[in-house]
């Protein structure tokens, strides 16, 4: 560990097992570092997991699974791709990925913001939930796989489709299946057969435009691009039919 | 037909006695026979035995295998195993005296052996572990053969009968050792199998034991996870393995092993200092399955000395005494007085309180 000044710390992750690496990160934060830069990361899990505070974590390399799980505050910036389970059950904070990510991004995420420059895997935004002033936000620049926003109970999913695999639709099948809260904005069009049976497509209103403008603006702030151009395209808004999709499923014996 | 030890669990009550010279001076088996004979009424003629240390000064580094064979067939089959696994220095019958009382004795043989070098290297084990595994294999896989003892410069002499008769049968008055332990057995049901008599041994360890423990199956099932095979299904066998695991395999000090087997009550922890408290708590947490519950008194012998211990509730009797370099333990004080009329010190041993006798200059068993 090299300490360049009191508030910025650099850690070389090369060859470190995650337990050791995360101990070093926690120690640096406990010693008062405002910024911790971890370089040569390759697959180390749990970076930022369970951490609270306002510090900034910079991750260079391929971030391992469960980056920022249960995280409560902090800003994590990844220069590289992320793997699976990023922002798992995240409570607050910001994660910015200069690259793409794997599956299950933002599972059960409750608050905070995640920005992904590229595309994401399957089951992204699954069971995200909002509550009082806590509204989690996921903004994805590329495309998403199937089961996008499955069981979604709250929060905002924004899928831009600016990049991603040629010939693939912007989102996979069963989009929003089991959704019973929150909202999704998908740029362009989504085929009816791709939607879960619990969601419906509605028109965007003024307030939606405002929300989109705010988060696309932040996306552009992180990764560059022209917000006006992005917002110019048509968007689809998806919301659940109701908060009680399974209200009549059961009868008592 | 009655099932023997190993085929069924046979509980038994008993008498035990031990005599040691801490300077390592050897003495004949005469005293130990008198001592155990005095407690004749604590056994019922269905088992008696002795362990003696320091008796083979001519072969101090060889493993002395005392063997019981049902017949020549089983001896020959076992000897094939011996030849494959050991270099045998000397082998032959253990001399016995014809007596009226002892009948149905098996073939009793003795071999002084060393592990076969190439086999030992191939196994990747230490010599002791190699021998221990061979012994357990013979006892569980060779019908009709039983290893009565397998340590260095020591041996077990046991059989079906009263202990004083067994002592006479084996001519123990002609052997000289610095540590002798003895056992008179009171089993509740046994067909009278020689292997089932005490002491039970493994390598240098020998145990004589009195009492039926209630924790047997909890102890056994724990020990079996560490590679032990409790083929005799006796308490003594399980207690021996417990000591072997803690002292030899885990390298723990004797007082820690004693803490595991006869743990202090939780209520006693309040009166301990923090370091001791942490240690006892850790022992009771990690080795909880080795707590020996129910009545027992034991003498665990080794080449370095012995420890005598009884259960933490003091459900079995145990008395100790000292005179000069000699230290004595027995189920009854009279058994000590019989061979040492005026000891320097006599005391009744408390529950869970070990009596330790070690050779001069040695600090662990």
């Amino acid at each position, binding site marked *: 560990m090299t300490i360049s000044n009191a508030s910025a710390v650099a850690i070389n992750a090369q060859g470190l097992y995650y*337990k050791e690496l995360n101990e070093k990160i926690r120690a640096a934060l406990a010693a008062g570092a405002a910024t911790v830069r971890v370089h040569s990361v390759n697959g180390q899990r749990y970076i930022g*997991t369970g951490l609270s505070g306002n510090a900034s974590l910079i991750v260079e390399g391929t971030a391992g699974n469960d980056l920022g799980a249960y995280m409560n505050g902090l800003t994590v910036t990844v220069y590289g791709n992320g793997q699976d389970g990023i922002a798992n059950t995240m409570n607050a904070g910001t994660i910015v990925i200069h690259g793409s990510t794997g599956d299950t991004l933002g599972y059960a995420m409750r608050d905070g913001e995640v920005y992904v420059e590229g595309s994401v895997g399957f089951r992204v935004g699954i069971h995200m939930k909002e509550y009082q002033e806590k509204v989690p936000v996921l903004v994805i620049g590329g495309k998403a796989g199937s089961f996008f926003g499955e069981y979604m109970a709250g929060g905002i999913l924004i899928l831009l489709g600016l990049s991603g695999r040629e010939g693939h639709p912007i989102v996979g099948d069963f989009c929003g299946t089991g959704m019973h*809260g929150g909202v999704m904005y998908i740029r362009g069009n989504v085929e009816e057969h791709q939607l879960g049976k619990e969601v419906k497509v509605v028109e965007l209103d003024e307030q939606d435009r405002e929300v989109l403008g705010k988060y696309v603006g932040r996306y552009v702030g992180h990764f560059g691009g022209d917000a006006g151009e992005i917002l110019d395209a048509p968007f689809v808004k998806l919301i659940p039919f109701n908060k009680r999709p399974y209200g*009549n499923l059961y009868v008592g014996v | 037909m009655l099932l023997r030890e190993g085929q069924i669990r046979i509980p038994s009550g008993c008498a035990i006695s031990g005599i040691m010279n801490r300077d390592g001076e050897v003495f004949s088996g005469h005293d130990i026979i008198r001592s155990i004979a005095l407690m004749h009424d604590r056994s019922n003629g269905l088992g008696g035995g002795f362990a003696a240390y320091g008796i083979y000064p001519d072969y101090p580094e060889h493993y002395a295998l005392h063997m019981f064979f049902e017949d020549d067939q089983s001896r020959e089959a076992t000897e094939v195993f011996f030849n494959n696994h050991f270099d045998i220095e000397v082998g032959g019958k253990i001399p016995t005296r014809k007596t009226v009382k002892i009948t149905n004795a098996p073939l009793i043989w003795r071999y002084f052996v060393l592990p076969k070098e190439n086999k030992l290297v191939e196994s990747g084990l230490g010599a002791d572990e190699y021998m221990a595994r061979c012994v357990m294999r013979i006892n569980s896989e060779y019908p009709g053969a039983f290893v009565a003892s397998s340590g260095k410069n020591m041996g077990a002499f046991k059989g079906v009968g009263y202990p004083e008769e067994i002592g006479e049968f084996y001519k123990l008055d002609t052997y000289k050792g610095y540590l002798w332990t003895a056992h008179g057995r009171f089993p509740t049901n046994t067909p009278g199998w020689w292997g089932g008599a005490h002491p039970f041994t493994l390598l240098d360890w020998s145990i004589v034991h009195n009492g039926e423990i*209630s*924790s047997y199956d*909890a102890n056994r099932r724990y020990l079996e996870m560490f590679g032990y095979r409790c083929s005799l299904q006796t308490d003594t066998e399980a207690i021996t393995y417990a000591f072997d695991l803690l002292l030899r395999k885990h390298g723990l000090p004797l007082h820690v092993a004693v803490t595991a087997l006869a743990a202090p009550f939780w209520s006693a922890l309040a009166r301990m200092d923090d370091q001791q408290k942490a240690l006892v708590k850790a022992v009771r947490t990690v080795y*909880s399955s080795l*707590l020996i519950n129910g009545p027992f008194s034991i003498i665990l012998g080794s080449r370095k000395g012995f420890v005598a211990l009884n259960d933490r509730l003091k459900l079995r009797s145990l008395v100790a005494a000292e005179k000069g370099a000699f230290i004595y333990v027995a189920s009854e004080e009279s058994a000590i007085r019989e061979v040492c009329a005026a000891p320097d010190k006599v005391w009744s041993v408390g529950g869970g309180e070990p009596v330790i006798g070690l050779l001069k200059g040695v600090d662990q068993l």
Partner: protein
Amino acid sequence: MSFHYTTPDFIVDRDERRCTQCQICVRQCANEVHRWHERGRKVVHDDRKCVNCHRCVLTCPADALTIRKFPNEYRANANWTDHYIDSIYKQAATGSVLLSGMGTDKPYPIYWDHLLLNASQVTNPSIDPLREPMELKTFLGRKPDALSINDGKLAEALPPQLELDLPIMFGAMSFGAVSLNTMTSLARAAERMGTYFCTGEGGLHRDLYQYGAHTITQVASGRFGVHPEYLEAGAAIEIKIGQGAKPGIGGHLPGEKVGMDVSLTRMIPEGSDAISPAPHHDIYSIEDLRQLIYSLKEATEYRKPVAVKIAAVHNIAAIASGAARAGADIIVIDGFRGGTGAAPLRTRDSVGIPIELALAAVDQRLRDESIRHQVSLVVAGTIRCSSDVVKAIALGADACYIGTAALIALGCHVCQNCYSGKCNWGIATQRPELTERLDPDVGAGLAANLLKAWAHEIKDMLGGMGINALESLRGNRLMLRGIGLSEKELEILGVKHAGE
């Protein structure tokens, strides 16, 4: 009145000579069985709404009420019993999945009742537990293979352990499924008796943080109320993979039960359904379980044991072994007779295996793999009395969870309607006028008394066996004998038949 194909389940029998028309029954019954008939100036009732919870019977000051099973019977038929005929009528009318509360009520074998305990006679002494020390202390958590001692001191601290004064804990029942007063009662009883209660998957209400040292916080697939402070709040964390009453099925707390307090605790909007997915969507394979276990250990800096709760299913031994190797410090097995607030009936009554067989198989398998001593085993799913606990320990458990038994201590009458949210005993409900019927001070006393009584009985039985520390019973199957069991059952249980 609409036409029904079925008769009511119960008849309310009101003794008109005794009834004083005081209307207490009207106020007590949340199912609205009793009603004041203004014109007739008398209390009347609707049998069809009665769930036989005995609340009215026991609160009637005149002892005027009796509830009886409705006497009409279908023509006797061993195949088409009342249950199947009535179920079909209900499903034909609604097109819905049958739902029930509590554990299965079918007469499956209860192996506890086919196991007998030993006692000492002559060859070793029984111990008098009233006057001699009798220790029930148990530690749950990961144990090393061996201790290392340096200079008479511990060379390494032990991994974190839960310290139980008796081998019984209160199993997971979530806030939402049960009332806050129920949870408070159990939390206080756990604190008083030196044991633990598990939050279930509904988060930890602010008022219960003070009992954190006696709390096991649960993380289930819905991740309700899971945040760093919650993970830190308890003494251990339990990952819920499955539940005995409904293995392989997710959870579903209806929006009616999500009032302000539940919403705050679960951190979801008021009135919305709380859906727990069937799997954890970050666990699709055993190596993913390891990832979740270690994410929780990382988040709490390895200061808390992590338990994994799994339902007893066919391949339970291999699954438990996998969980142990994935890093679980405590493995909780919930048998298929275990309770629930709501489960699809057909799943509840036909999926999974009994806890006794699961426990015996898991304990033996972990021993065969020489890893049993490294982890702790907690079992649940119809632990009905102290001798069930003793038998479970002898089969190989470290401790038991009780759920239904604890609720019965608080007044539950096992009417199996928990899912309705109208529990007249104030247990499985969030309605303030009902929850206030259970005073947590009284409830804590009742639950603590139950543990106290069972602890006495356990000590009696241990003493009889000549054992004075619970650990000497753990896995001590020689203390058990089977009765009326087949060779195969005895083999799986690892016990001999009585008389052997």
